[in-house]
């Protein structure tokens, strides 16, 4: 019996393992399906990692390396090249690797499986069906792990961060990125990536546009890009044709929760991740979740921070019994699409409750308001700018919540001019 089993050794799993060890857990097992630890960080050879956590600019592998170094001095057991096939509600983990198929148990479990990319099928892009269409992450893996370019003339659909990073990367390797096409009227990536990966290389970004046809067989040779109206319907006669051999898709990420489902964990249809408490515990007692398996983050630093929270809570769960019987639900209103956590235990063990959320539109000067059941504002946070492409965070002082009941509502209101 392990104290803690962590599934996935990307930024979430690595950070959780280090934190849980430092918090005094004795028997920790970290499981990774790849042969190396680090997860997707290993193919993210660009810099920009670690600014918040380590106060310096690191590449993805370096960021992972910081945690891997720390793990060396611990007794955390690492199983790489190992795939978890099932988790049950009683904390039994079924896994397979080249030494066999086995079932093991943990007092606590942390889910850190990350996410996967949405594919062409998810948005049913019509057209020819030869080669030349890839998710941005797949192209990144071929580029950075294998040293091969997927194509020479590229159109990118979606302005997610991986697509933006790949626009720069492919350009630096000599390919021509013709356009980045985004169906929304705003970019879904970080502002800094729009600047550093598109603008600095004169790559046009077409907002409110989408790909309406892919042509060419056996390999893509053209795409048709159309402007869309406010309901995302293509506008006739707005077509532009690009001669290209490659389409990269950066159209969103989906938390990977097949294992969570097998454990009977309740998922939030909005995040597609587990519903969690303020300490990252899921609906199943003693199973915690963190990182992109819960909600898609913009920064690995935030993933690591969320994992730390989960690991501390898991350690507390193993070391002592919880004495919290009150609870508050976090609801959303207006343009807030979801919050993480979705529930808060009362009384709180921490002084602050961190809440992250996203909106479905851009706001200028505005305020994030947390209201109680009666509709009275509990706290209010001014913001200069909010965009759906960037994960928002607020920290609510625990003492403001002591006498609250049933639920809180999080919303964004425009500030009066």
């Amino acid at each position, binding site marked *: 019996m392990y104290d803690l089993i962590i599934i996935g050794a990307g930024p979430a799993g690595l950070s959780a393992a280090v934190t849980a060890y430092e918090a005094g857990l004795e028997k920790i097992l970290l499981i990774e399906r790849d042969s190396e630890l680090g997860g997707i960080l290993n193919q993210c050879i660009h810099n920009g990692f670690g600014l918040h956590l380590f106060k310096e600019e690191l590449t993805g592998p370096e960021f992972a390396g910081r945690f891997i170094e720390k793990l060396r001095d611990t007794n955390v057991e690492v199983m790489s*090249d190992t795939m978890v096939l099932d988790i049950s509600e009683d904390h039994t983990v079924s896994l397979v690797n080249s030494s066999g198929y086995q079932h093991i148990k943990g007092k606590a479990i942390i889910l850190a499986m990350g996410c*996967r990319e949405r*594919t062409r099928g998810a948005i049913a892009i*019509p057209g020819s069906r*030869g080669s030349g269409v890839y998710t941005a992450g797949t192209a990144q893996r071929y580029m950075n792990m294998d040293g091969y*370019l997927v194509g020479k003339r590229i159109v990118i659909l979606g302005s997610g961060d991986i697509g933006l990073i790949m626009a720069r990367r492919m350009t630096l390797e*000599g390919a021509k990125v013709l356009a980045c096409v985004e169906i929304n009227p705003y970019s879904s990536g970080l502002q800094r990536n729009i600047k550093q990966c598109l603008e600095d290389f004169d790559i046009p970004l077409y907002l409110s546009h989408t790909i309406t046809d892919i042509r060419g067989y056996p*390999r893509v040779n053209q795409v048709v890009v159309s402007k869309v109206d406010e309901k995302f319907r293509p506008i006739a006669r707005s077509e532009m044709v690009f001669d290209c051999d490659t389409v990269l898709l950066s159209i969103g990420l989906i938390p990977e929760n097949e294992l969570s489902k097998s454990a009977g964990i309740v998922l939030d249809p909005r995040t597609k991740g587990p519903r969690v408490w303020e300490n990252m515990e899921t609906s199943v007692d003693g199973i915690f979740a963190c990182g992109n398996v819960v909600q898609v983050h913009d920064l690995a630093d935030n993933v690591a921070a969320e994992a730390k929270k989960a690991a501390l809570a898991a350690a507390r769960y193993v070391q002592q019994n919880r004495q919290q019987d009150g609870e508050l639900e976090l609801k959303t209103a207006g343009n807030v699409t979801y919050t993480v956590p979705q529930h808060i235990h009362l009384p709180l063990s921490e002084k602050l409750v961190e809440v992250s959320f996203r909106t479905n539109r851009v706001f200028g000067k505005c305020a994030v308001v947390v209201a109680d059941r009666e509709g009275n504002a509990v706290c209010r946070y001014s913001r200069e700018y909010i965009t759906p492409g960037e994960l928002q965070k607020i920290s609510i002082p625990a003492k403001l919540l002591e006498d609250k009941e049933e639920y809180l509502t999080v919303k964004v209101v425009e500030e009066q001019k």
Partner: protein
Amino acid sequence: MYDVIIIGGGIVGSATAYYLSQYDLKLVMLEAFNDVANGTTKANSAVIHAGYDPKPGSLMAKYNVEGSRLTRELAKKLDFPYVNDGSLVLAFSEAEVETLKELYQRGLANGVEDMKLLNYEETKAIEPAISDNVHGALYAGTSAVVSPWEYCLALAETAVRNGMELKLNNEVTAIRKNEDETFTVTTVKGEYQGRYIINAAGIYADKVHEMIGEKEFTITPVRGQYFLLDKSQFTKAHHTLFQCPSERGKGVAVTPTVHGNLLVGPDATRVDDEDLNTTADILAYVKETAALSVQGIDYRENIRNFSGLRARSDRGDFIIEESRSVPNFFNLAGMASPALSSAAAIGLTAKDWVLSKQAYPKKEHYVDSRRKIRFKKLTDEEKNELIKKDPAYGRIICRCETITEGEIRETFRGPIPPQSIDAVKRRTNAGMGRCQGGFCGERVANILKQELGLDYTEILQDREGTVILEKKAKEDYENV
């Protein structure tokens, strides 16, 4: 010199190959693409129809019912996925209920067993997700779903294991008759001499026939488009759900697949040549029409769209006969639905035709079985035993479908080694799942590279030309 040359490695050519390879004769199959099951066979509804649909007395009626029975037996013997899910034809009006009665009578005339007419309540009881506008249904218990490409591979692999030569990438360009009454078939790769020709060239069957014979029939490709949905949508249909044939056409089917997904489609659109594009308007039509049968299909869970072609003949029926202008040349043409259901019976007939020409003896040693390792389906003990023998079975390559490196490596030692990423998918299911190879594609490419001794830039997604990687990094580009 070959006794029999089969042109085309789809389901019909492969079924013929399977039966002929039981006889002591020299057999070769010429396939234009780099794998069998690479045309119409790989893109259709994957349904083994019960046989109430074709007009009594037609070849389609005859071969469908017999073929459906043979498919069930072959699935057991040759180990390919087959699920007897049963089908329902749904009626959306009282007039359509009358059509169901006609279909029922046709079924009886065609010799279909286990049919029942159901009212709305009875239908709802066995298929809870059907829409409220259903008035009744025709249930057919013998209807089934298969993995069409695995079915085809099972047949072709067994034929190869029993001595058939398979020539991939051999598109036929000319056929001539020699003085001694034998044929010489010219392909892009070489020449093959044989006594008898079986033409199973799918949508090209008319063109292949006309390389030597007169115009006896015309094949028109009729395209159908599909949605393949994630396993999360599997429970939306427990049976294969058809709609009544009407002026709208044959309607759109909603069916579970043997792999645990949900398949929605097809439309029917005449196209020129091999047009496998998908189009926004037709996909919207397919969705709308399917909603008549089942409501609440979540198309955000779509994992793939594809098109398939029906090889429809101008005779409105299968063409299963010796060419009228070329003796010793047998046409298996017009292989539109229910060709997949009928393939085994058609193959048997083609075999009988060859034997009627020349009484080849049966082989003494014939391997008439095939077993595939499906790691996911094994017990814990079996899994461990396998991993102990070969640790590659402990490494999962495709996480969505739980496919191991061992299963993938094994296909390269098989009778028809894969030549592309999709060929690996057809043999193992790696890449079939919700991430569509996003995770395993690169890993499969690496295995292909090692096993076939290729450079990355030679790795194919599917057919010739579908290269996935253009250039090694740091090599300079010119003229981009």
